[in-house]
């Protein structure tokens, strides 16, 4: 099984203001970008983060070999049940997302 961390160069999650999280997946090659872009679905990201898939905004940026996801924070920054003030740990969950092999199977 291949996970995102095996083929992406860097995965970063940050707050974009108190109410949004943004996740940047940096790829070092066109090939890894294409593979992740095809395999990693909005449904998969929504499932991992426990939110409805309609809330996901996605930007495929081939010029940068970057795939970006932005979503309303599952828990608003700094509220009672927030565990991560800067939202940086969500990247670890995305890093463990399963990626299909080149033939499109897992």
């Amino acid at each position, binding site marked *: 099984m291949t996970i995102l961390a095996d083929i992406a160069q860097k995965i970063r999650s940050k707050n*974009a203001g108190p109410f949004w999280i943004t996740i940047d997946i940096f790829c070092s090659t066109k090939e890894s970008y294409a593979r992740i872009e095809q395999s990693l679905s909005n449904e998969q990201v929504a499932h991992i*983060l*426990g939110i409805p898939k309609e809330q996901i905004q996605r930007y495929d940026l081939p010029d940068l070999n970057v795939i970006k996801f932005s979503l309303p924070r599952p828990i608003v920054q*700094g509220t*009672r049940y927030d*565990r991560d003030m800067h939202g940086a*740990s969500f990247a*670890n*969950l995305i890093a463990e997302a399963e990626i299909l092999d080149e033939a499109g199977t897992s």
Partner: protein
Amino acid sequence: MKKNITTKVLIPSGALGLSYDRAALHAGISRNPNIIAIDGGSTDSGPHYLGTGTSKYSRSTIKAQWRELMLARAEANVPLVIGTAGTCGADDAVDWLAEITREIAQDVDQDIRLAILKSSQPVSRIKTALENDQIKPLEPVLDINETCIEACTNIVALAGVEQIQKALETGADIVIAGRTTDTAIIAALPLARGCHFGGAWHGAKIGECGALATTKPNSGTIMITFDTHGFTVEPMAETARATPYTVSAHMLYENSNPLQLYEPGGHLDVTRATYTALDDRRVRVTGSNWVPSDIYTVKLEGARIGGYQSVSLTLIREKRYTNNIQTWVADVETACKTEAQEEVDGNFTLELRIIGLNATLGHLDKTAKIGTEVGILAIVTADTEGTAQEVAKILNPYLLHHPLSEQEEMPTFAFPFSPNEMFRGEFYEFCLNHVMILKDPMEAFYLTVEDVPQ
């Protein structure tokens, strides 16, 4: 001859309080900038700072760095502007930095003209604006009403370039601004001098975190040169390089939309921007587009008390307990809640997070495994200080001695402190995600000028 409007903005670092390379700052000063601009904060460290109107960084750090920038400013003989002073940009934080500024001016014997732009909003103004339908929600939509506005300990509006330009027009040597957008302090002078609109806002976004848009983020200092068509990025540290990749990738940073950026008075669109390497360390950007809006809006931020908290940490090394930690935690929560509800007045919540299992991500972490020890971070949050402290004390013996079953000797776990519960006081939460419509950009901001020493 046509006036030269090329404008060089020197950005010492991503924020006052962060480290930067002093040689890079001095290199920047020797290049004759037109202005020095630095950010003083953001919401990223959480609602406490806006809630209390205080700075995240130590006064000593801020004073040491601000002193260096004031000396650099005097050497360059250009204005120095800081936005979002004191982390949150509330009036108390602005007053705090103004006081530090006066102390330094005296210490280093500088005569300066100081402009102070305040962004705090009186509750009455926000309530009136709400009644007059001048407050509009952003996504995700939060409910807003009079009660919520009255509960805020601080509300700030984010100034744009118009208010910073007014402050610069006073002839100020130093501008201390309350909450502003990160970009406004950088874009203000280039726009006032007639530089390209899209280029000014785009260059300001690239420069707002200092050298983060280069190969050497910690070097801090960067120069953005604005002109009639676009802008050029050049790091000031000798070994740092800006490349089309490092510059264009910065649009991703802490930004939900990498192609558009909303500001007071319009939005930036970089869809058609081109990034060209001038050499191996400078990048030229053109093709950025500014789209003006019909109405002028400023974003609001507000924080209110969300409750009072007490936390405690318990360490568990006993294998039978670590192996059954989720059962134990559920037992402790139930037992403590039951007792506290019988004995204590007031509303509270109790949450036990298992450090060493899934304290970081909670139920989202589906592959978490237990190690040889766990920490239990217990968080009591209540409507009043008294309830939080009472419930935390009721919890104490459960955390120390609660057995997994009644048929075993009472265990004792490790408390690192006495008392083990740490009262955190009030905690704050952000409660506005709105913009306010203004007829005149200055109507919600307050500008004063003083000569220091007076």
